Structure formats: structure tokens, C-alpha cells
């Protein structure tokens, strides 16, 4: 926790966030009914941005799963008799 964590405070519930982006996402997730137009636009943008980063995360996760799967397949082939 740093000092700047108090600088992004939600005006509805008072929770504070370390970055502006997290506050934008928080507003969209927790208080969707109380967003001003520009806040809504900011949320949509942050959401779409995260969506693309999630896509690359999923690819990497899938890679790890495939590695795990084949890694263990080979281990079983070699060591289980």
C-alpha cells in the first residue's frame, strides 16, 4: 500500500484504489447505475482494453495447459511401467 492509493477514491462507496484505471473499472462493476456519460465511456474503454489483454492471457494459459498435459503424458510414458 502506498500513499497514492488514497488518491483515487470512489465517490459512491468511498473505497480507494491505487490507480485511476482500477477506480474506473470499480465504478463500472459496482455502481453501473450511477455513472455519468464520460465515466461510462471510460469504463467501456478500460473494459475493452482489458478484454484484449485477457485474450493474450488466455493464449498463454492455454500454452501452459498444453505443456502440462504433454509433459505429464511423456513422464507417464517414461516412468510408469
Amino acid at each position: 500500500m502506498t500513499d497514492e492509493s488514497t488518491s483515487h477514491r470512489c465517490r459512491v462507496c468511498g473505497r480507494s484504489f491505487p490507480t485511476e484505471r482500477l477506480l474506473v473499472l470499480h465504478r463500472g462493476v459496482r455502481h453501473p447505475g450511477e455513472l455519468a456519460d464520460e465515466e461510462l465511456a471510460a469504463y467501456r474503454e478500460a473494459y475493452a482494453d482489458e478484454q484484449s489483454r485477457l485474450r493474450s492471457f488466455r493464449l498463454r494459459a492455454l500454452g501452459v495447459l498444453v505443456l502440462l498435459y504433454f509433459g505429464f503424458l511423456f513422464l507417464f510414458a517414461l516412468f510408469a511401467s
Partner: protein
Amino acid sequence: MSRRLHRLAFAVVALSLLATGTALASNAAVGLSDASRDALDVPRWLYVATGGAAIGASALLASFVTDRRLVYAVHDWRRTVVGGAVAPLRALLALAGLLALGVVVLRGFTGPAIPTVNAAVLLVFVGGRAGVTMVAALVGNPWPALNPWRAVASAVPSGVRTYPDRLARWPAVAGILALVWLETTTSATDRPASLAALVLGYSVLTTLGAVVFGPDDWFANADPVSVFLRAYGRVAPLAWEDGRLTLRLPGMRLVEAYGTDEPHDSDVALAVALVWELTFSGFVTTTVGGDAVRAAVGVGLPPLAVYALLFLGGFAAFLGAYWGAARVATSRVPTARSAPALARRFGPSLFAIAAGYHLAHYLAFFVSLSPSLADVLTSPLSPPANPLVLTLPAWVGALGIASILLGHVLAVWVTHSTAYELFPSRLQAIRVQYPFVAVMVGYTAASLWLVSLPTAPPPFL
């Protein structure tokens, strides 16, 4: 029961878990189960590693679910089973609890001295420790209705003092550790008279506590047995919510805070204590554990000190690992939440692990002694004429391994759901889980390793 068969069955279960979600996998899993007919022997390290990997893989699979609405829908799904009050049933259960307590004390002192036919030992360990706990975790917690001490304390005026809130569940954590210690190191498990004396002493203490602090506060916070069963009950699908018996998906009550109270540090200690007590009793009853204790005693330490050191040291290590995970989580993810606050919210997922682990430890014990328990329940005052101990097929052992894995997979989902409850950013919610999942992989590996070892009675006790 063959350990080899155990591990073999496990390999199939674990591989099919790893395979979830990939169509490619099915061929290989089928191939392996074909091979298994010619007694595939899996080395122990590979079996442990596969178990750990299965948990890691299920966490990765869970992280693919990034749709908040789906996570919330799974969490919130509920159906009302019984809408009204069931006072007559409660009274009947309370009566059954009181009768059982009477039988335990009476038959403990007057019954046969052989533990496997004595009603006191069978009721406490097979019926209570194994049976009621399983019902609490798999169906719903019956203890508030059964609890004989609550029945007594509710019948008299109580609540002279208010329960100090700052103690939270600490007295229960200490009590659970103390009870497990007594169970492991004293003759309570095989001398019915000692057990009856212990139960009498416990009854006096807990009834007194309930009368002084009021039964509701006492049994929710301080009474070890009630807090223990309530914790397992939070994993179960059935529970009373707002006066209605409600069905939820297993483990989903772990995502919320503890009842109406704020989660507390003692709840984290409680969750770790439940996992640790099973690990400890698992460890000391294996030949490897026995050898380790013998080696330490050989150096010149008194046996009880070795056990105490192992018991408390291991608990501290498990607890430290969890707090450490919370600290790593807060340092990796930008958040205004403190590490203890994270540990308190993620801690309850460990109850699901404890439930799976409890099944693995006690299912075979419970089923094999259940005929004797049934005898004792139907004629409590005479020892069973023909005590029957069932010999179990090998797949019951595999069921134990499957329940360890399922408990962990459930804990992974609870962690995922909790992270989505806490964090506005979905990537943040995924990243914050890694340290907790790493600790879970460690716990799984440890428990699978213990389950695979040959057992022996603990030395020097």
C-alpha cells in the same frame, strides 16, 4: 489394501482431471486406462506431481471463466427446500443428542474395554468424528440441532457475561488443537473409560461456558466441536438461511464472510488448523512419520516433546505459508487491501480442502465400522453380539484420493469466485489467486504423499 492399486486409480482420475476441456485428451486417458489393466506402476513422485499439476491446471481452467455474470450466477444459485419451521424434528434431534451423550458416558465406564465394540468409542469416533463431520460437509451441519450441551444450556437462564468480541474464534482454534492432541497422545481412543472421563470433563466445561456467555455466542465462537462442525457445514449444499432450508452449490457459502460476522484472523487459523490436524494425524500414522519420530527420540528428546514440536511447528508452518501467500498476493497486485484482509477473505476456501481430506481419512474407517455403529445405535446397552468389520474393496481408497482432488478443485473455484467478488479488474482477480493456488498445490502434494504411504501405529504412545 494395495497402495499400487491406489496410485494407479489415482493416475487415471488425475489425468482425466487434467484432460477436462481438451478434446484431444480423451484418447490418451482411454489409452492409459487400457494400459492400467496390466498393473501400471506409477512412481510415488510422479503420482504426487500429477496431483499438484491437476490442481494447478484446474486453476488455469478456472481463470478462463472471466464472465462476472457467470461467476455470480454460480455463487448465487439457490433453491428453497423447506420453507417453514421444523420444531418437532429439532426437539427429536436434541433428544437423540442427549441420549447419545448419556450412552457415551455410561457405556464408557461400564461397557467392554475393547474399543471396537464399545458403544462410547464407536459413537464418539465413528459416529461423531467421522460420521457427523461427513454429514456436515456433504449434506448440511446437523450439530446445532443434535448438540446435547446446547439443549441443556438453552433450558436454563444464561448470558451472565457478554462474549468478548476480540477473542473471536481463537478459543475454538485452541480447543480444536487441544482435542486433536488428546486424541493422538492419550488413551482416549482405545480406553473407553478415559474417553468417558474426557467427555464428562468437556461437558462440564462447555455447558458452563454456554451458561455464562449465552449458548448462541458460545457455540458460534468458543466451543471447539461446534465451531469445527460449523466450518465443515459451510462447504455443504444445505443450510438454514433466513429461516429457510436452502440448497446452494457446494462450497459457495465459503465465498461470503463468516455468517454475519466480519471474517477474522482466527478464521484463517481455524481453516489452517482443520487442514493441519488431518495432515498431522495422517503423518504420524505412516511408517515414514513413525521413523522420523523415532529418529528424533534417538537423539535424546522425550517422545511427547517431539510430537508437540511437530504438532505446533507444523501448524505454524502451514499458517505461515498462508500468510506468506497473502503477502505475496498484495505485493504482486496493485490493491489498497492489506495482506491480512486478503488472507481473511481467501482463508475459508481451505474448508473445502479440509472436507475432501477428511473424507479421504475417515471414509474407509467409517464404512468398515458402520455395522458395529448400527448395532450400537439399535441396542446401546449391550455390546454387539457379532461385531462385524467390513473389508473394503480397493476402490474405496481411490475414492479417498478422488475426494482430496475434488476438495482442492472446489477450493480453487471458491478462490476464483472470491477474487471476482473483491477485485474490479479481471486480470487482477486472476493474478491475485496465484500465490493461494501455489499454497494449495503444496497442501495437495503433501496430503497425496501421506495417503500413499504405508500406515503403522505411532510409536511411543
